[in-house]
C-alpha cells in the first residue's frame, strides 16, 4: 500500500464488519473514498448506513476489518494503540451529536483536557483555552458547567475542545442533531469558519441533506455500508 500524501483522507476497499450471534453485519463494506486537504465533505445516509462507523474509522476510534485507511499520509491500520491515541489527540478533532462534554468539569476544564493529554505546559494553557473559547464566542462562560449551558453553547464548547490542539481534520458526527434549526445554523457557521479560515478538512456526518448542500463542497451518500453516489455541491458562500 503506497502512501497518498495528496489526500487528507484516503480509504481503499475499507470494511468494518461486526458479528451479532451468527449474523455478520457489514457496517462499512468495501468503501473507497478520498478527501482532499481543506475539503468539506458531508456523509449522508439513513440510520445504519455506516456513515458514523466510517467517521470512527477515520478518527482512529475503531479499526478496519479489511482494506486500508490513510489519514495525513499514515495508514491507521498499521498504527499501534499508542499511535492511534496520538492521532486522535493531534491530527483529528471530533464533535459529537450529544456534545460529549464531561459534566463534572467546567467549560474551561473540558476544553483544557486534550492539552493535558498532549502534555502542554500548564503556563501556556490558560491563553490557548481562552483564545479557543473566544473563537466560539464563549469567553465569558469559562467557569460554567456544561449543564448550565444551552445545547448550542455546549456544542460550541465541544468545537473549541476539538480545535484546541490545532488538528488538520475536523470530524463532526451529526453536530446539529440535537439542536433547533437556528442554533444548528450557528454551529454550522462555526464549522464553516474552521474550514475557510483555518483551512481545516471537514468530514461531517448528517442526515439533513439541505444542511449538507448549504455548507459542504461534496456530498457522499451511503447505504448499507457502501458509498452509493457522490456529488459536488455548491455551498451557500460559494454561490
Amino acid at each position, binding site marked *: 500500500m503506497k502512501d497518498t500524501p495528496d489526500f487528507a483522507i484516503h480509504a481503499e476497499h475499507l470494511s468494518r464488519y461486526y458479528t451479532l450471534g451468527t449474523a455478520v453485519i457489514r457496517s462499512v463494506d468495501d468503501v473507497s473514498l478520498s478527501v482532499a486537504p481543506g475539503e468539506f465533505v458531508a456523509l449522508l445516509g439513513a440510520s445504519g448506513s455506516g456513515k458514523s462507523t466510517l467517521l470512527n474509522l477515520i*478518527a482512529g*476510534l475503531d479499526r478496519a476489518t479489511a482494506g486500508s485507511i490513510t489519514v495525513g499520509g499514515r495508514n491507521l491500520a498499521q498504527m499501534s494503540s*499508542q499511535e492511534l*491515541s496520538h492521532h*486522535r489527540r493531534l491530527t483529528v478533532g*471530533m464533535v459529537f451529536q450529544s456534545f*460529549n462534554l464531561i459534566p463534572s468539569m467546567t467549560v474551561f476544564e473540558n476544553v483544557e483536557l486534550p492539552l493535558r*493529554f*498532549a*502534555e502542554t505546559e500548564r503556563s501556556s494553557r490558560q491563553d490557548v483555552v481562552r483564545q479557543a473559547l473566544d473563537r466560539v464566542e464563549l469567553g465569558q462562560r469559562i467557569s460554567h458547567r456544561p449543564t448550565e449551558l444551552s445545547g448550542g453553547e455546549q456544542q460550541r464548547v465541544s468545537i473549541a475542545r476539538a480545535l484546541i490542539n490545532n488538528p488538520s481534520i475536523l470530524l463532526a458526527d451529526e453536530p446539529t442533531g440535537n439542536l433547533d434549526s437556528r442554533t444548528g445554523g450557528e454551529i454550522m457557521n462555526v464549522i464553516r469558519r474552521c474550514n475557510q479560515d483555518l483551512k481545516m478538512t471537514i468530514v461531517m456526518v448528517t442526515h439533513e441533506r439541505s444542511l449538507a448542500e448549504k455548507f459542504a463542497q461534496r456530498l457522499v451518500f451511503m447505504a448499507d455500508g457502501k458509498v452509493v453516489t457522490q456529488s459536488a455541491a455548491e455551498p451557500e458562500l460559494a454561490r
Partner: protein
Amino acid sequence: MKSYDLLELAGRNLRESMLRNALTTAGISIGVASLVAMLSLGAGLQDLANRRLSKSGLFDTVYVTSLRDFRESDPDQRKQERKVDVSKARALDDAARKDLATIPGVLEVSPEVRFMGEVRYADATHAAFVAGLTQSAKENESFDGMKGRFFASATAPEAIVQLDFAKDLNEKDPNSVIGQELVLRYAERQSMAGSSSPGAVADDSNPNASLGGGGGFSVVRKEQPLKIVGIIEQEPFGGMRSISRARVFIPSQLVENLNMMQYSDMRGLTGDAAGEKTYLALVVRVASAGKVQQVQDAVKKLGYRTFSILDATKGLRRFFTVLDLFLGIFGSLALAVASLAIINTLVMAVLERRREIGIMKAIGASDGDVKTLFFAEAGAMGLLGGVFGVILGWGIGRAINFGTNLWLQRRDMPPETIWASPLWLIFAAIGFSIVVSLIAGLYPAARASKLDPVQALRYE
C-alpha cells in the same frame, strides 16, 4: 500525561464520589490501623524486653572465669579446652584483673563476691548469702523502686537487704529495718608467710589454734557491723546465680578491704600457686552491648573462659522476629479485606465513568493515560488510608498503653510502655498501604484502559 495533571485529575475524580471513596479510604485506614497496632505491639514488647534486659546488666557484662575452674558445656568448645592443662591454665588473679581492665571497651572489672555469712540482728542469728555490689550496680533495674537508698560509697559499712530477708528480720514491719544495724560474721583470710602447710583455720578468740602453712593463709572469724540503708525486692543480676541467690548486699570494695574469704580461696589452695589470691569469677562491664563480642574475644586470647548473655539473646531475637511476622500477617488481614473494597470501588467507578473514559479516549487519552489515572486514584486512596490508619493505630496504641498502665497502677506496679511505633513502622505501613492499593487497582485500571471507545461513547 504530566504528573501534576494526573494527580489533579485523580483528586478531582475522588472528590466527585466523595462518600464512596471516603468509605473505602476508611476501610483502608482500619486495615492499616490494625497492622500498625499489631506491629507496634510487637515492637513495644521487644523494646520492653530489650530495656529490661539491658537494665538488668545482662547485655553489657562479660563473666570471666579461669580454665582451671570452669569448662565449656558446648561439646565442640570442650574439645578445644581439653587440650589445656588445668595446672598450666592462667589463674584469675590480680594480674589478670589488671590485664582485663586494659582491654579497649572495658569500663570496670570487679570480682564476683558471693559467700555464706551469718547475720545477727536484734539478738537473732540468720544465715544468708552475701554478695558484693559495685557502685555502678545502682543503674540496675532492681533499684528502680527500692526503699531507702544505695550505698553512700564503695567502702561504706552499709548493707542493702532483700525484701524476704527484711521480713525474716522483722515480719510485721520489714521497712522498719532501714536505719538499723546488723552484724555480719564472716571469715577473714589472713596470709601466713613462712607456713609449710597449704592452709589453716584459726579463730581470733583462739589464735593458737592455727595450723600454719608456707604459701597458705589463716581463716579468722570476724564481725562487721553494717547499717541497713535499703530494701530491694529481688537480687540484681550481679552473679551467675548458679551458686545461690544473695539476700544481703554490701559494697564490693568493702568486701575486698575486709579480706573476706571466698570459695576461690579454698580452690586456690589446691592449685600449684597455693595461697595466692585468686578470684572465682571477674565481672567485666563493657561500654556498650555492641562491644561485648569484641571484649569476649580479647579475654579469650588472654587464656580465660568467658560467658555473656549475648548468645542467649540470639534466640530471643528470633522469637520476636517470628512474633512480628505473625502479628504482621494477622494485622494485614484487615488490609486484605480493605483491598477488596478498593477493587469494588474502582470497578464501580469504571462502570459509572464508562462514557467519560470513552470521551477521554476520543479526544486523545491513551490506554496508558486511563490506566495511570485509575492507578493514581487507587494510590491516593492508599496514601490517605495509610496516613489516617497510622494516626488511628497510634491512637489505639496510646489508649491500650493508658489502659495497661491504669491496670498496672492498681496493682502497685510501675508503668510500662508496651507500645512502640518507630518511624520505620509508620513509613512502612503507609508504603504498604499504597502498594496494596496499587495492586488492588491493577484489575480496574486494566479494565478501564481496555474499554472500546466506540462502545463507551454509546453508553448512557
